[in-house]
């Protein structure tokens, strides 16, 4: 749906994006990951046509990005805000019309969302009279009110309280099921594992990793297992695996092992069962957090 091709963005003495290419599939929930200052926001601003790249191009549904696409994209920036002195209904109308909606359409959509969020009575309230959590709901509505095909959320959960974060998550997933493509930019990995199908990792202005979450995790599996047993294992030395960590508590021994190439977990079980009572054998799949840290450190 969105093809980011060889994007370069150069600021005076700092290259914010260095030849970044990413493919985002229709209907996916895509995580744009990276530490602070990696270039995520620069890329998002380019997708939103707030700034233009120095090199490269972006295609939306096969078309080169142009002003007509603005109405198809919904953007919740990391730095969020509203006009404090303006009434909420009026403000939503303004923002929706800026996205290209007619006044009648905008009014109907806003009413729909206000009802969905249970905030119908807020229409004439001023933003400065709302709590932070309330403002976040309003901001989210402003992002999706024009029914965008592509929703870009920059650090969406920063500043959201857990209740609102869950509420917003549910809304995002519902929109995704209805066909919207979602891009998340975040450095919080828990939400990535929970929500994203695919990710791209940007570090120091370069894309260093991308693909489906499942595939990436598979890629980073290194045959590490956790086993637990009671009894005495003899001999401990075996060509099957190396022990990374050993811990004994009372009867039970916990081992973290790395199975050597050419062997499988079944081989390990065959080796263990005659000698000890096995209570656990689990593969340790690296979390996105581990993968993230591992990549960023290198």
């Amino acid at each position, binding site marked *: 749906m969105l093809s980011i091709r060889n994007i370069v963005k150069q600021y005076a003495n700092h290259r914010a994006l260095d030849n970044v290419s990413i493919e985002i599939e229709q209907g996916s929930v895509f995580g744009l990951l990276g530490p602070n200052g990696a270039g995520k926001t620069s890329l998002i601003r380019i997708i*939103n046509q*707030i700034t233009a790249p120095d090199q490269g191009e972006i295609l939306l549904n096969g078309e080169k990005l142009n002003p007509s696409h*603005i109405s198809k994209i919904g953007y919740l*920036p990391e730095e969020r805000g509203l006009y404090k002195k303006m009434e909420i209904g009026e403000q939503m109308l303004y923002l929706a019309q800026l996205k290209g909606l007619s006044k009648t359409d905008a009014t109907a959509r806003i009413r729909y969302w206000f009802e969905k969020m249970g905030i119908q009575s807020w229409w004439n309230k001023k933003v400065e009279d709302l709590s932070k959590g309330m403002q976040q709901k309003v*901001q989210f509505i402003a992002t999706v009110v024009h029914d965008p095909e592509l929703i870009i959320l920059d650090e969406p959960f920063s500043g959201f309280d857990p209740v609102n974060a869950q509420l917003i998550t549910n809304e995002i997933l519902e929109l995704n099921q209805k066909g919207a493509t979602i891009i998340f930019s975040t450095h919080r990995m828990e939400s990535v594992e929970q929500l994203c199908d695919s990710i791209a990792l940007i570090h120091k202005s370069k894309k260093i990793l991308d693909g489906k979450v499942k595939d990436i995790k598979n890629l980073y599996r290194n045959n590490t297992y956790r086993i637990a047993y009671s009894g005495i294992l003899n001999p401990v030395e075996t060509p099957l695996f190396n022990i990374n960590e050993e811990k004994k508590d009372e009867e039970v021994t916990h081992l973290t092992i790395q199975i050597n190439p050419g062997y499988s977990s079944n081989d390990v079980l065959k080796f263990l069962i005659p000698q000890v009572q096995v209570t656990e054998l689990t593969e340790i799949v690296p979390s996105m957090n581990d993968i993230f840290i591992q990549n960023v450190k290198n």
Partner: protein
Amino acid sequence: MNKILLIIKREYFSRVKKKSFLIMTFLVPMLIIGMYALIFALSMKGGDNIPAVEVIDDSGIFNKGLENKKSATFSKSELTLAEAKQKVIKNEDAFVLYIPADIASGGTIEMFSQKKAGLSVISTIENQLNDQMRTKLLADAGIDALTLDKIKPKLSVVSKELTLEGEKDSSSGAAMAVGFAAAILIYMSLFIYGIQVMRGIIEEKTSRIVEVVISSVKPFQLMMGKIIGIGLVGLTQFLLWITLSIGLMTIASQIIFKGKMDQIKSEMPMSKQAAAVNSDGPGMDIIKAVQTVNWPYILPVFIIFFLGGYMLYSALFAAVGSAVDSDTETQQFMLPITLPLLFTYIMSFSFIVNNPDSSLSFWLSIIPFTSPIAMMVRLPFGVPNWELALSIVLLIGGFIFTTWVASRIYRVGILMYGKKVSFAELGKWFMYKE
């Protein structure tokens, strides 16, 4: 284009609906009318306590007595000087005018009172005494009053503007006053509305709404929408001020005029009334003078130069607003904006007024950064049409230029948070590619 209209509408209505706008709009004409009414009231009444002056005339020259005027009334006193002095000491409202016997040979006329007599009282007395003295001296020299009346010259100069369309009365005093007022108004409003543009941008930046908005519209559209919207607010305010002032002034002058007629009727014989209505009182002079000003010429020129100057300077204010995070940081950037304005303002009222046709005045009224104020000051003295046209064209070019420069700084500045910015930095932003 549609979106810029939306932005203009928001900027305009969010300001026009504010209470402070309504208050300003109605308060200012009220104040103008109030001042106008005050002048009238004062000129009609001449103060609450009109001094009653007792005149001791030891010379016998002024046996006709003195005429009562607005500023003082007069009566002959039979007291001696010593008695009169006693009276003044005892009575704080007493005024005694003493004319010594040797007045013809250089004696001094004295006024005794506890309170110092007002300047207008003294000048009324001086005028009347001088008149009577002169008549007497002339009579002594053998010239009678009739002959005197005949030879007393009554010349006056009426200024007429002669153009191809014919001649008409003009009052250069009123035209100058209007030109100066227009210059001051432009000077003040450039600041007032320019700073509103700057504040509006700082507000959008600090509230972070700007990033949401510029994901929908180009930064240039947002900036222009704001500048135009606020400019229209200024224009609305001016138009309301003008119509309200004229309306209120008409009503007020009707009321006062009627009051004056009544007063004249009771005070004067019929034959003098008409003359009095036409000439008497500063209030009538103001109305007459205001009518002589060439409004259909001055108003459009004023509006063009206000709008041109506003667009030119507000673009610079916009650039400053985009570069900072709060009002307090604006100061270093304000200097290059305020300096030319202040310079023109000072030059206008110290130099141009006295040398409206000098080459310096010409250049000040042609260069876009100074012309909105300087041209207004020159206007009453007559500015050739080609100069006016050149100045307007350059002003338009000037604001296109500043808007272009400002928009290049603005598009980068609004996305920069928490950074102390220098002029060199602004230059870098300006050079950034799209």
